[in-house]
């Protein structure tokens, strides 16, 4: 379903030199599979998700989703591809404050160009336990409820892949498991592949497949090795 090949991403430094962020020789996720990617802060987790979603373009390499090599698409085509085939759950929910829960879910449908399906939006909100909060705006909901709206929105366009970036990081402990359960269950019901990026062990330990970004991303691997080497050297000096 998803395959990354020879994927590289780097940013230009102010002095003109290249700052490498990602170097993924190969990584793949099957259709309907649920994968957790863990790793320390600053190892390129969000950048990886942005590249898979087509928000960012890689410096080089291939991102194959459902047979499409998305970096080859132009920006407008990538936007359309993202709207139709990829759902995104953000760490900070990113709901539009002026829109009700129902409208936030339907917003994603509006951009996919398939027309708004109100029944599906209501159904999704009911499935995440918010049937009674359809017309509430984000400011009138708890953080847990907001993240559940975000989950419903990610699934609105019947995507093939859902990307969740630290979905429980800003949710209270009581709601964290609820969010994970809903995300996993709805993705399973809809046969959607799920990639969750997190550094919370209580989340990762629930999944069969847990990939370390330091194993996937050679830049992160080198960084960790350098850090370990530096720490070992510091120990020797002591």
């Amino acid at each position, binding site marked *: 379903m998803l395959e990354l090949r020879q994927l590289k991403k780097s940013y230009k430094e102010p002095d003109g030199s290249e700052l490498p962020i990602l170097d993924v020789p190969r990584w793949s996720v099957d259709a309907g599979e649920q994968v957790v990617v863990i790793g320390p802060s600053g190892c390129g987790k969000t*950048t990886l998700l942005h590249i898979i979603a087509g928000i960012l373009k890689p410096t080089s390499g291939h991102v194959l989703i459902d047979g499409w090599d998305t970096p080859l698409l132009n920006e*407008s085509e990538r*936007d359309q591809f*993202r709207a139709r085939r990829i759902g*995104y759950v953000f760490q900070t929910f*990113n709901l539009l404050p002026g829109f009700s829960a129902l*409208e936030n879910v339907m917003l*994603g449908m*509006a*951009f996919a160009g398939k027309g708004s399906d109100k029944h599906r939006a209501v159904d999704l909100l009911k499935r995440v336990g918010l049937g009674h909060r359809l017309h509430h705006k984000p400011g009138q909901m708890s953080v847990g409820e907001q993240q559940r709206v975000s989950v419903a929105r990610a699934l609105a366009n019947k995507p093939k892949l859902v990307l969740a970036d630290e979905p429980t990081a800003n949710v209270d402990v009581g709601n964290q498991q609820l969010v994970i359960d809903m995300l996993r269950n709805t993705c399973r019901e809809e046969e959607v592949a799920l990639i969750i990026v997190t550094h919370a062990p209580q989340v990762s330990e629930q999944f069969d497949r847990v990939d370390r970004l330091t194993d996937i991303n050679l830049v992160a691997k080198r960084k960790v090795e350098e850090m370990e080497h530096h720490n070992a050297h510091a120990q020797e000096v002591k």
Partner: protein
Amino acid sequence: MNLWKIAYRSIQHRTLASSLTALSISLGVALVVTVLVINGVISKSFQQGAQGYDLILGPKGSELELVMSTVFYNRKPMSLIPYRYYDLLRTSRYSAEVDSAVPIARTDNFMDYPVIATNTDYFRKIVKSDGKPYTLRDGEFFKNTDTYGAVIGYTVAKQTGRKVGDQIQFGHSGPDGELHEPFTVVGVLDHTGSPNDRAVFVNLEGFYKQHEHQQSAFDVDYSLVEAEKQERLAANRHGEEADADHDHDADHDADHEHAEADHDHEGHDHDGHDHERRLSAVLIITKEKSVEIGATAADVDRAMEQAPGVEIEETQLVSKKQKRKVHDLAVTALPEKLSGELLDAQAVAPVSVITSFYQDVIGNIRYVLIIFAVQVIIVAGIGMMVSIYNSMSERRQEIAIMRALGAKRTTVMAIILFESILLSLGGGFLGLIIGHGLAAAISPWVMEYSNVLIRPWDFQLVELILIPGLVILASIVGYLPAVVAYRTDVAQSLQP
């Protein structure tokens, strides 16, 4: 959910800022609407003044002054014309062109309201701007035999409280310190929406009688001065010639009958009496010519070449348009004929004088006001641009979210433009309501002072231009914020 609704929700989310932005637009639009409504009032009041007659015969001089003095009564006449010109207009010399002539003597004011001395023809022959005859709210029109009869306008009655049976005095006191004999109100006019609402009409005969008794009691001397005796002699020659053709119709006879009956001045015969009198103007209603049915275009042209004065068989009429053409030509040619024959007088078509005055003076003021109002709208539009632009910094994340959900760059750009259009249209409609509401609020005041009835909720066609105008303005001012939205860096703006 379409893009318009998304834009509307964004506006709704920023209620206060959006309301203030729309309000600034609405004030500009309200100003434009108010200018248009006031312009309509001014235009209407000008147009309503000179309805019901085609020409004004008055003393030579400024055409505008003659029209202003005769139509709007806003100044006293600087000079006068002999009464015999009025008689002359009713002879066969002018029978081909002149249907009716009505004498006017604009004299002193009664409590700031102009007094117009005339005869019954004013109310019988002249129609109002709506083509209907003058009607009375109370009483009756004075008859020519009511020497001291007066009819007062709607506003005069309302403001002074004068009613039928009350007496009216105007002018100064005479040498003996006493005011002359008063006129008695016999009728009160219905509202006309013309300067006549603020006028007092008195019987010309009574006015002359007073005047001949107490010349010094009036600002304008309507009696013949010694210096004009020579001219009078020449005029008499003219008059004799005219008298030979004089077609004393029943109406004319009636007019003179009373004059003889009432006239008690020693040594004044009928003819001499009229010739000693003077008028400020004569209102002329021209005849409508007609040509035979089946007339070819050449016939009509020939008839028009011969007009005025052309006699055409009135069997059946050709098209109204052709009739109108012949009629218009007669009206166009009559002033020349009159000016050629009456050396110290001129005949002017009030409508054309008023129209050109309106276009030259009032029209320019209107354009200045509209330009000013449009500038206000543009400034408000720039304010709207600043407001939306400033909101963009806090909306970068919203835009990034939309982009992350699959919105194209052009889509978010369109949403911002739609937002700008909705704000300006909302402000525009609010402005229309405020503008017309303002017109409704001032309409009683305008009615009081200009006698023009404002229909504040009557929309003018030109107001429709405001809608596409506002859409264009909104598209221009919304462009810069829309470009900001277009260029938003999604990944960076999504950073928590």
